[in-house]
């Protein structure tokens, strides 16, 4: 079973709990221990400090390192901040960056079409998947609004808590562009149930390293009561297909 992790943070973050992995070496040790082949990685400074500088640090930290697939954090281009959509696409192409992560709550901006329409049109046109954690959205209604405002963009939402099933089920039903990161999807039998109702294609394996548990994440897939094909799709198939469709 080949695992490719869709959510890993490199770089030195501000707050660490005792014994939490921090360095790239510690992350790689966990990836090896959990047999995770490669990981889509973004940089801690891009989330917590300077977005553009953090994206550059990521290029340095992953230079010639085939274990990591590069992911940039994006910001809207208001008052000349960050990059224009054209500059972003050019930068992604030159540096083989294949996906985008956004932090609308942490970085404080609107997801509505009046603000992000142009940006999301580019994501749709170039089939670039957009990654977010569930707590970056104001509510499940905000999630539904985003998914329906931009139906042609694939969104991968991670860290959905086990308490959200009644809120997420109807959204999964209505929004085929809604994918779930399985890292902390701990609902009892959740992976199996989702396969039954929505198909394995809707789930992307991720861990949330270094603050999420990789061991728990791989176990959730290995021990799930689903077929081998379904496990493989979740573990790496869906992500690889999505990233292969990116046109830059």
């Amino acid at each position, binding site marked *: 079973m080949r695992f490719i992790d869709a959510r890993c943070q490199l*770089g*030195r*973050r*501000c*707050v*660490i709990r005792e014994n939490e992995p921090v360095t790239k070496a510690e992350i790689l040790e966990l990836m090896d221990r959990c047999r995770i082949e490669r990981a889509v990685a973004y940089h*801690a*400074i891009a*989330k*917590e*400090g*300077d*977005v553009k*500088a*953090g994206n550059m*640090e990521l290029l340095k930290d992953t230079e010639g390192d085939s274990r990591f697939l590069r992911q940039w954090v994006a910001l809207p281009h*208001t*008052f000349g*901040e960050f990059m224009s959509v054209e500059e972003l696409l050019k930068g992604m192409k030159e540096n083989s960056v294949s996906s985008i992560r956004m*932090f609308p709550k*942490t*970085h*404080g901006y609107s997801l509505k079409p009046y603000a992000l329409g142009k940006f999301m049109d580019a994501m749709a046109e170039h089939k670039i998947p957009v990654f977010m954690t569930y707590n970056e959205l104001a509510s499940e209604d905000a999630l539904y609004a985003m998914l329906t405002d931009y139906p042609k963009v694939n969104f991968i939402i991670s860290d959905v808590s086990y308490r959200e099933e009644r809120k997420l089920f109807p959204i999964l039903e209505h929004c085929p562009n809604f994918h779930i990161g399985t890292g902390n999807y701990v609902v009892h039998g959740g992976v199996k149930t989702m396969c039954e109702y929505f198909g394995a294609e809707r789930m992307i394996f991720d861990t949330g390293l270094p603050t999420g548990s990789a061991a728990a994440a791989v176990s959730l897939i290995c021990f799930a009561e689903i077929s081998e094909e379904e496990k493989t799709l979740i573990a790496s198939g869906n992500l690889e297909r999505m990233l292969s469709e990116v046109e830059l």
Partner: protein
Amino acid sequence: MNWEQYIFEGKPFEGIYIFDVHGHVGAHKPFQLGGYDADSVAKTCRRMNVDGVVVSSLPALASDWKWGNEEVAASVDAYPGLIWGYASPNPFYEDCDITPYLDLPGFVGVKIHGDMQGSTPVNDPRYFPTYEVANERGLPVLFHAWLSAEVRAAADVARRYPNTKIILGHSGMTARDTALEVARTCDNIFIDTAISSTYDNAIEVLVDKVGADRVVYGSDICFFDCIHTMGKIALARISDTDKEKIFGLNARGLFSL
């Protein structure tokens, strides 16, 4: 000095030593800052005849402490004599030692922002190694001291490390009563004027209650603009000598410039 004339003709003040004890470089994640790199900060300082500003890096406080302190070192390097540096520790990293930065020319103090670092109280023992160094060298330590609890924690540090010079950032306006109270009990506590919005007369109240000698000009530049705080001090109804002390003479003593 005819402060009004300077302002309303848009002419930066002349003949006044202006030293900003509370500056920043580097981006801040929750919202967009205008011109947060060293060049922008230097440009504004030169335009406004500001003789010097001590900056800490926002990423050093809220993100990667090493990357951030390097950012400060680069800024100090680029504008020697104009941009001075605060080094900032991080309590979560045992290997975090900011002495190498304090040894660099141009680094003149320490900046602590417990709130951004997992809301760690500033008198948390994990900050003590930094205070020991500051105490040995008699350095100023600028605290983010917004809430009165933060002011009291900073005052606790002032008492434990009497050889440091503690600057209560923002406290002149927010937790003012607590700040005034602790400033009376500790003579190594100073109060800066860095705040985005407060009413006129706030500066007059500070000078009246704790004396101009204990108030230092700080603007929080690049977090927001320094102009409005400068204007507030310039047009405050306090004597010119008090304005000169606040604008820079006090700081000159604090930072032994």
